[in-house]
């Protein structure tokens, strides 16, 4: 529904993706099943949209990489990590910085963040998701340099 915006098309897509998963699963060795199903479903939706000549804006289509979990709460217990985390948060773009700070450090809900910032709730979700992924990349870089 998120991508196709049409109930009938979304239902058809579910059926096709399900059948595709059954046939493709026998062909490949899948380590992360959930991530793989997500990619199959998303690629199917993108192909559907492309075949209908619909333009997909970059803003609407965040990175499809399913990232490893970043334990922000855990990092806050180590002094050195807190410094690196704060430095990394500062390097995020303005929207991501505000949303990540409010969500992880001030424990605000998406709705509260949306009300405080004026961003749409789904934008908040996207800023937090992308912000978290970027934080992980920045932190990994900094930790490598520190080693």
């Amino acid at each position: 529904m998120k991508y196709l915006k049409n109930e009938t098309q979304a239902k058809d897509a579910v059926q096709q993706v399900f059948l595709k998963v059954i046939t493709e699963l026998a062909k490949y060795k899948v380590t992360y099943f959930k991530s793989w199903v997500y990619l199959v479903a998303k690629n199917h939706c993108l192909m559907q949209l492309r075949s209908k000549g619909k333009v997909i804006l970059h803003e609407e289509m965040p990175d499809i990489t399913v990232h490893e979990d970043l334990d922000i709460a855990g990092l806050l217990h180590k002094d050195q990590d807190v410094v690196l985390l704060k430095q990394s948060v500062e390097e995020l773009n303005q929207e991501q910085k505000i949303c990540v700070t409010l969500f992880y450090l001030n424990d605000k809900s998406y709705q509260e963040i949306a009300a405080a910032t004026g961003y749409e709730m789904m934008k908040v979700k996207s800023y937090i998701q992308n912000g978290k992924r970027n934080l992980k990349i920045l932190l990994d870089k900094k930790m490598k340099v520190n080693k």
Partner: protein
Amino acid sequence: MDEHKHISPNTISNEMLLQYTEGKLSDADTRMVEEAMANSVFVGDAAEGLYELENRDAINDIVGDLNKKLKTITQQQKKRLQKHKPLDINWIVIAILVLAIVAVGGYLAIHFLVKTK
């Protein structure tokens, strides 16, 4: 929260996600769902898709209908596969053995007949 105590952010149920989009969850459960959304693009996209759905009350019917259709399709495929199933390897081995026995038996019989003449 009590209802969902056993649920971790990694296993958000459909029901919980639906209740989240309807704003029916407690603060603690809302936090859990939102953390799951931040951790997994899959959960995030699912929630976003639910928001797009006009009649969210019908979601269980939609899922039931999809399951039924998929079951029918997969059963049809299964039947088709069984129809065109290649010969069982055991039968091929048995047939080869029988042929070999007949051939050897035939050879021995001819050999014995020629000798007795």
